[in-house]
């Protein structure tokens, strides 16, 4: 291996280690609770999807800022997505919803307000219409 190649390889190694260490660490806020601490949720919401239709818990979805809540999403037919969006349009998080599985995620909201649910995975031609505005209410 030539000298220049070795130096270049060292640069690649340092860059790779640095970026991976930072992104695996709790420096990425949600990494703290989705991967490291895994806190016990204060409430859980079961959501089912069948033939393009979301079915939410009968009491709606209400969460408190800074409290971990669990979403359990199931599908009866094909793979969908479950994404939660801020009023500004920004996506907070999303997961895939596989049929035959309980697809779970724990989330901690950091801002009160209303949030939109949208399917984030293509599930057929009606996919673009799978959106529920203001489906989640987060209170202080």
């Amino acid at each position: 291996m030539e000298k220049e190649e070795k130096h270049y390889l060292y640069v690649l190694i340092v860059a790779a280690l640095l970026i991976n260490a930072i992104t695996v660490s709790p420096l990425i806020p949600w990494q703290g609770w989705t991967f490291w601490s895994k806190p016990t949720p204060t409430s859980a919401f079961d959501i089912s999807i069948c033939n393009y239709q979301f079915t939410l818990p009968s009491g709606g979805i209400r969460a408190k800022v800074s409290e971990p809540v669990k979403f359990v999403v199931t599908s009866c037919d094909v793979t969908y997505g479950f994404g939660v969006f801020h009023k500004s349009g920004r996506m907070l998080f999303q997961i895939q919803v596989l049929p035959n599985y309980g697809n779970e995620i724990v989330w901690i909201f950091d801002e009160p307000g209303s949030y939109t649910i949208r399917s984030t995975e293509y599930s057929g031609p009606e996919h673009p219409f799978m959106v529920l505005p203001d489906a989640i209410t987060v209170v202080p």
Partner: protein
Amino acid sequence: MTMSKAPMTLQVLSLRYAVVAIVFLALAGIEGMFMRTQLSNISVNVPGVITIPMTPEHYYAMLTAHPLVGAYGWAYLAVFAAFYFLVPTLTKKPLYSMRLANGHMWMHIVGLLTVWSAGYFLRFGSLYTVYWPLPVVRFPPVSVVAFAVGLALVELSVLCFIFNLFATILMRSEASPLPKGVALHSLLMASFGLDGMVRSLRGLFGRKTALNGGTHAPDPEPLPVFVVAVMRGSIDAVLNAVVLAGAGVLMLVFTLPTLLTGLRLDPLIIDPLVYKNVFWWGLDMIADGDVLIWVAGTLYLLAPILTNRPLYGEQVVRYVILTDLIVSMGVWSHHLLSDRPQPDWMRLISGQFITWGEFFTMGLSFFSVLMTLWLARPLKFNMPMKFMLGGIMGFALGGGSGLLQANFAVNLVMHNTQWVPGFHIHQMLLTGLSSILFAAIYALLPMLTGTGLKSERLSNLHFWLWTIGGVGMAFSMGLAWRDGMLRRTLYRGVEMYLPYMNAATFFGVVLALGFLAFLVNLVRTYGLRTLIALFIPSIAKPK
């Protein structure tokens, strides 16, 4: 270039493939532009052909065909064009079967047109991902059958290509008098990149050969590194073809009984997560195997040809080829980072850490090529050189964004947003892969026809418009991620994403104009009649 009724030559074969590839690129581009107009809320009505806005069924059928036409029609056939000429030429052997090469080109064309028709006429719109059980739940059985048969023909064509290349290299000839068994052994060693390692170990332990006083036969001349990369990529291509053909068979198993007897099998007896793992393992053999290693191989060939000096760090490159085999087989979980039932350790190790292996393999490949150019200064910036550098830039931009989305933490806020098709896929395929393919076409045309393209001005226009259009479109799409715009989603009546989508449409037009400059140059240089005569020799001008 003139055509006559002379027997098929490697040059004619290669040109045929290149012309068909360019036609498919045009088709993929037209589809792409129709979809851009859809996302920009532009109305277009061509009676009897297309109406924009389309119905969602039509849009998603087009979205299903677009990547398949682009990947298998343009990229694969352009690669076939180059390799069918270069591999026999570099190994100094005739092509194993000219008839097979010509035959499977037609099989490929019929297969792709069948796939395209399944969408356009029968509205099959399961996307190229065909997540189980979507195809058999949502779409008419006849469309599923048409799609599966078309896909099977394309994959069979790919297998024919690989067979033909391997058979060519294994063939005994005066230039390669090795016994067949030895040739096979050397080829397999080279395909897995092990030949360099064995040579190094022998050197380390000082094995004596006939050349330095020993009794062992001297090691055979190593295969050119380009050929090693071609063979290495072929392993991925075979595995990919088998897995995709398997997905097609599964669709047929669940669709044919419904079509023939009305019997409906429960598709969920196939586990969607297991299917997704197997499918992405196979599909990634293209994205993270073929594309990377075949492109790297093309660069390993182009750089020395364009600079007239040996490839810098060739031995390291041989190890890179071996390493990439392992990497390409281990990265598939980066497509399942958002699938929570997939175990954390798989998502982290396969999805993120192994994917970073590509940072090293492609990083070292580019370094080797760029050092070769650097040491050859002053460089002549001809068209292959410009496109090669543009392609490396495209891969660097698209690859970097790919690494970011293939991240355990970041994927949670990025998966299935416009970041993926914008910053990553279109950057990789248009600015990266396509530019490298254009570099190869510009370099090969003089070898195949005896003359390069006539107008340097049009060639330069092609380069600049293609590069600016490709980068601009990728960035315009990708930036829509910030505002939460998803991929594969129509936003009828939503205005917040229009600035991004309108910019993407504008740059798409710039890109198309670049391609048009190339087409005009091609036709002005060789004449439309000559290009058609590649397929119908009887219409060639008499000599």
